């Protein structure tokens, strides 16, 4: 059934494009940023459950269909992560590690750019120093103190473009991002 998802999606988009553009109560000024951040968290949870089931169900006939479901969910997750970064107005050039926000560009180190990119793609979720070292930099040997230093240095750099409060620190839980605090929509 889910094998036909892309065609279903195409049909629905065309149909809704026609219908929804005429709906009343439209508020063009509403920021989608917090909503998108929320959806990313739920999609992540769903993908996590699916991955866990698939990893244990190898060989089971249900696993084939569930893998297809996961593929679609991962695609949507990636698309919403891109959209979140786009809505936050933060553009990171991965080649030269340049951050652009509100028309201002800032040159970051590779580590700083990787860290910010990772946090922007995983909003509303705190990460411990260990998790950040492994997931953002693929380097589990970095100590907590080193990660903390990188975070503090990045926060100071981000103040130069008005994004000083975008990286949040949650006691005993780790570091996260609140992109909405950067563009004044929350």
């Amino acid at each position, binding site marked *: *059934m*889910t094998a036909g*998802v892309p065609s*279903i*999606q195409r049909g*629905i*988009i065309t149909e*809704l*494009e026609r219908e*929804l*553009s005429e*709906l009343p*109560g*439209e*508020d*063009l000024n*509403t920021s*989608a940023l917090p*909503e*998108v951040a*929320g*959806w990313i968290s*739920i*999609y992540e*949870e*769903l993908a996590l*459950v*699916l991955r*866990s*089931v698939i990893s*244990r*169900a190898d060989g*089971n006939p*249900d696993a084939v*269909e569930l893998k297809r*479901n996961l593929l*679609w969910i991962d695609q*949507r997750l990636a*698309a919403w992560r891109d959209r979140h970064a786009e809505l936050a107005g933060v553009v990171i050039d991965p080649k030269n590690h340049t951050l652009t926000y509100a028309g201002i560009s800032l040159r970051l180190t590779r580590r700083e750019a990787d860290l910010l990119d990772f946090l922007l793609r995983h909003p509303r979720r705190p990460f411990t120093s260990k998790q950040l070292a492994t997931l953002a930099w693929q380097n589990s040997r970095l100590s907590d103190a080193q990660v903390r230093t990188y975070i503090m240095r990045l926060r100071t750099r981000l103040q130069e473009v008005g994004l000083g409060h975008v990286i949040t620190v949650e006691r005993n839980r780790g570091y996260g991002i609140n992109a909405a605090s950067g563009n004044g929509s929350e």
Partner: protein
Amino acid sequence: MSDPRSRLIPRESIITSRLLVLQSKRLMLDAIERRLDSWNTPDVKRRFEELRGETEAAQDRYRRAILEWGSTEDIDYWVMAYSRLIDKGNVIVKRMREANLALPPAERYQVSADIEVMEHLVEDWTGSLRKSMAAAVA
């Protein structure tokens, strides 16, 4: 790499212990609910709310235990797995529906498509859940 806990405690024991905790909480909740009918005092009410939260948490831990430690040969595993997927899928559908009307048009098209596809997935999972439940009864 296997979880070190699995070498120390048999998987079934973990599931059984969480089930026992859940059953105890349910019994306590039932008892205080009955008491609430006769003595609707703030203290009893507060304890009822606390126990309701604890029962939900115990239910969640039991579900997680089944998913983590249960055998995929066991029908219960699939009932639990599909229930979990349906719950999460419904949360996405609900959240997206609530937000959709307030979003700018560019977002709405995509969100509406996501809602529709997610509803199809939830439908599929519900069908699979029903099959698992029927197999459990048979």
